[in-house]
């Protein structure tokens, strides 16, 4: 059933995706520092390499060589595996995400998606929801109160916002009639007017808000907010294990950006003279920038306010949106 070429192709794609996204995740930390610095009228990292570019490498070396500390009372196997879960799920979720339109290389047509399954959207959200075990297990096994508080917040918030993101994305799915991200992309081929953002503005806003929450970004970064709970679930972590959490978080950011671009903003369809691949890069970059911009511009909210907004505002709104969409479709 599986022929060897397909296996090799899949493995190569997987390796490329993991390598590129991991590198981009590292690069995103540099971008974040730079963008935040500019918004605060500073320069940010400048000393290592031209314009501070090699700061990234320096950080990497530091992380890799730092001592891997495991607290005495921590439950060792779980403490060690938690960051791996966080990073792995972030990457596994990308298996069903298409990045670019298909292209031909050396006479061989390549689909830039690891596996086109017909429930891609559900799959991505499902694997992302399994990612919750990273913070949860990290916090529980650390034998640290801040970690435990962080884990508790993480679980409560992620589970709640999964409801919002799932319900809000239901309305576009109802309009398109497919869960495959490629189908969703293909439904928006007709230029900027065809983007689903115009037909589903409310779903778009809700999904974006839920995306900010699920990636623990400001203003919803209550899971690891320094002023309240040190570093949340990651308090006891250092070195590469801490690094894995961060790679996971930035990988999740990229996934969310890709998802929003595909579902609501026309995906990788060519626009005017810009080819589809470049379009996708532009959109993802814009979203990453937006993540940083919001972090620089907004104060963060309290956990109780977050839950209040989630269950009493966002969730009802998304249900109303589904009902309206249903009537409109009838």
């Amino acid at each position, binding site marked *: 059933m599986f022929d060897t070429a397909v296996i090799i192709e899949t493995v190569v794609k997987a390796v490329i995706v993991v390598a590129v996204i991991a590198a981009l995740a590292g690069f995103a930390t540099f971008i974040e520092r730079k963008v935040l610095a500019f918004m605060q009228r500073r320069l940010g990292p400048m000393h290592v390499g031209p314009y501070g570019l090699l700061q990234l490498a320096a950080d990497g070396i530091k992380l890799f060589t730092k001592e891997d500390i495991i607290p005495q009372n921590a439950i060792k196997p779980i403490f060690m595996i938690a960051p791996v879960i966080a990073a792995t799920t972030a990457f596994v979720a990308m298996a069903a995400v298409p990045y670019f339109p298909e292209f031909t290389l050396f006479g061989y047509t390549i689909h830039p998606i690891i596996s086109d399954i017909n429930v891609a959207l559900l799959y991505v959200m499902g694997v992302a929801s399994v990612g919750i075990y990273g913070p949860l297990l990290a916090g529980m096994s650390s034998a640290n109160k801040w970690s435990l508080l962080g884990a508790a917040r993480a679980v409560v918030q992620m589970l709640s916002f999964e409801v919002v993101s799932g319900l809000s994305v239901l309305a576009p799915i109802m*309009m*398109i*009639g497919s869960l495959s991200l490629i189908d969703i992309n293909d439904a928006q081929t007709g230029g900027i007017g065809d983007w689903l953002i115009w037909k589903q503005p409310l779903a778009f806003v809700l999904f974006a808000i839920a995306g900010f929450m699920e990636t623990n970004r400001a203003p919803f970064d209550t899971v690891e907010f320094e002023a309240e709970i040190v570093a949340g679930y990651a308090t006891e972590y250092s070195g590469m294990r801490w690094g894995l959490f961060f790679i996971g978080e930035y990988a999740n950011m990229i996934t969310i950006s890709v998802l929003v671009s595909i579902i609501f903003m026309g995906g990788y369809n060519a626009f005017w003279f810009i080819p589809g691949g470049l379009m996708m890069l532009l959109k993802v970059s814009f979203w990453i920038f937006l993540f940083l911009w919001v972090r620089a511009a907004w104060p963060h909210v309290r956990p109780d306010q977050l839950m209040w907004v989630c269950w009493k505002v966002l969730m009802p709104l998304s249900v109303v949106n589904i009902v309206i969409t249903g009537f409109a*479709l009838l």
Partner: protein
Amino acid sequence: MLEPISIDIAGLNLQALLPMAILTIGALALICVDLAVKGLNRSFLTMITILFIVLDFGAVIGYKGDVRGFFDVLLIDGISLIAQVIILVASALFLPLSMSHRHFREFKMAEFYALFMFMIVGFQCMVTSDNLILIFIGLETSSLALYTLIALHNRAKAFEAAIKYFTMGALAAGFYGMSALIFYALTGSVEIHQIEQVLQERHFEPLVGVLAATIFMVAALGFKLSLVPSHTWTPDVYEGSSAPLAGYMSIVPKIAGFVVAMRLFEMLVASGVVWLEYVLYAAVVLTMTLANITALVQEDVKRMLAFSSISHAGSMMAAILIGTTQANTALFVYWIFFLFTNLGAFTMLWIVRHRENLWDERYQHPYTKFSGLVKIMPMTATIMGIFMFALAGMPPFSVFWGKLYLISAAINSDYIWLAVVIALNSAVAVYYYMKLVVYMFLHEPVTIDARLYATNASTSLKVIVGFAAIVTIFSIAFVEPLLQVITHYVASSGF
């Protein structure tokens, strides 16, 4: 875009859903009203619930031949009708027991009544379907509500009972799922009539598959019907829950289970495969005999009644094993009479309930509690005695007629040994029922304080007891018409 699917509304036969819809709406309305108005009165809640049950009853009895509805998931036939009537009558009679003299926390909550209605909806779904999935969901809805109702009694023992029942119920649900799975894999259907059709075409091959499915199903329904060896939860759960609920549990979940068993097992027994019959035969004989023997050594009346209800359930399974129209009619008649007798007996226990265990450290209703009751409260003792006589199957009281009809059904279809076992068990059962009568009438009283025995009595409880006693005593007057009506319905749906 997806293409819309068009459905013929008239073909859905939405009236078939009406009885369940009434109670569901009633329960939801009750919750919403409770949200707006705090502290609703106990009798108001009881009455409004009974009102909905009566409405439901009205929707149920508009029966005109076998009807399928809602994509053929629902099946309304004669036995589902009788079962629903029994369920609704039992619910309407047990519910007023909430208006006891003492105030209990659970009866002040609107949620109790809402859950009660949801539970009835679950039972109704169980009996009005021959679809294994709908039956399962109905079973789980009713069980889940029942667990909660038991635990609401807010005593340590009630929690214990609820948890025990819940754990056992979860295990039974697993068995049920396994059985339905094997049936589906064997026949490609989860509807009992189609399963029957396919199995008969194939002469019940592969037999090992049918056997595995049957064993799992006997185990699953056995929990609900408290058949040996899955009966162990029954006495503890009855002891822990309040008397009205214990009485309710001995009647309503079982009749729902019997209808499912009737639909499923009769086609298996009719297959002519000896194995399947042996499995049921063993379950029936063991249930009756072991439960009776265990009941002999009980020191608590409530536990004794629990074991006796297991034994009665065993005789009911005998009716399903026999499987003729007469036997099935006997099942329903027996159960209707058992309903009134048990209603009376458990209401009596509810009336004499006292907050503290005055008579025994371990038990709430030990036999000694009732010693010499005739000298303290002659009326109470006499009525209790009548119920005991009736449960023991003494003529002319109610359960006797059921038993008589059941034994004659067994003899008519050449189950002579089964008839002998049923008769012998009735003889054994006389001993433990009479033990209570002996305590009440022949022993010297331990205390002469009559108030201790009537702490929970109220007018509505007395009315219920009186009603149950009248039905029990004068059952001879309506055995004949009851038999005719039930035979008509049972025969009309082909059982």
